[in-house]
């Protein structure tokens, strides 16, 4: 066994992959269904950044799964199965996007939604004020039990906010925070420099935090009104 895992949420990758690949080669439909359920939402999110419509993104995902199945015998376990699936996805999406002439290179110059402060500057004290650059309206504690944050209402809200992120932020947040891939894997998959990968990730996370904050505070206002 190698050294300890860095993130507690991550399942042991390679051994689990080997068993899964064997199950898939053997035609185990339940194993396939499980993998499809886990990966497809992130695959759609990543594909959507490369092609013109949701319908085309779904076609890209279907084509990818077929390529995965027919290519299983070539999978050697040099990367994780998940990374391999996403690499195929991006190849399919890019060739499809090129055909539809709408590829957005991940490495291209940052569009306006990917630059500027991630927290409203009005929340900090201005340059003329004492304690300039410090919070003027600091975040208030959420003080919610974990069960409230895990409610289906919050999940629906968070899912909608994730879907509404600019495509590149959405893809990076899906791969890093939903799928739990390592930074290096995401950079390799999307052709991103590591600093840019973190910028996109941070912007997406900051937006999602803001959505949750708005929800929690609004909820409290409602309570105060009775």
């Amino acid at each position, binding site marked *: 066994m190698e050294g300890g895992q860095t993130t507690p949420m991550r399942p042991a990758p390679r051994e689990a992959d080997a068993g899964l690949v064997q199950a898939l080669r053997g035609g185990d439909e339940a194993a396939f269904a499980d993998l*499809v359920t886990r990966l497809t*939402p992130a695959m759609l999110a990543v594909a959507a950044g490369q092609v013109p419509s949701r319908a085309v993104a779904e076609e890209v995902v279907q084509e990818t799964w077929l390529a995965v199945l027919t290519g299983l015998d070539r999978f050697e376990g040099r990367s994780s199965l998940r990374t391999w699936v996403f690499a195929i996805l991006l190849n399919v999406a890019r060739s499809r996007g090129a055909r539809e002439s709408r590829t957005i290179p991940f490495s291209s110059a940052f569009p306006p939604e990917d630059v500027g402060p991630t927290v409203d500057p009005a929340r900090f004290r201005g340059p003329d004020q004492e304690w300039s650059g*410090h919070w003027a309206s600091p975040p208030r504690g959420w003080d919610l039990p974990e069960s409230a944050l895990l409610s289906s209402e919050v999940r629906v809200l968070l899912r909608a906010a994730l879907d509404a992120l600019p495509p590149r932020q959405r893809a990076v947040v899906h791969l890093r*925070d939903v*799928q739990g891939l390592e930074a290096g894997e995401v950079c390799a998959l999307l052709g991103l420099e*590591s*600093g840019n990968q973190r910028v996109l990730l941070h912007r997406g996370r900051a937006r999602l935090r803001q959505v*949750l904050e708005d929800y929690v505070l609004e909820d409290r206002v409602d309570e105060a009104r009775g």
Partner: protein
Amino acid sequence: MNQGQDMNCDELVEVVTDFLDDALDAATRRRFTEHLAECDGCDAYVGQLRTTIGLTGTLRADDLQPDLRDRLLTAFRDWKAHPSPR
């Protein structure tokens, strides 16, 4: 730019992901942790960002639209019935 100076809140909130990914240089990391230890606002912000990341991770279990799932499973059965396209 602010090398050696105290970190301000508006600078800290922009580098939380760099901090979590262990991508800050040693001096900036020290300014970050020193500020965080003394600032309730930033402590709350970082805590909420961590909570957000954790919640985002739970979305993985969300349902896939049934029609797409069905199409993919049908494709799997076809592949199983005719394993090699060549």
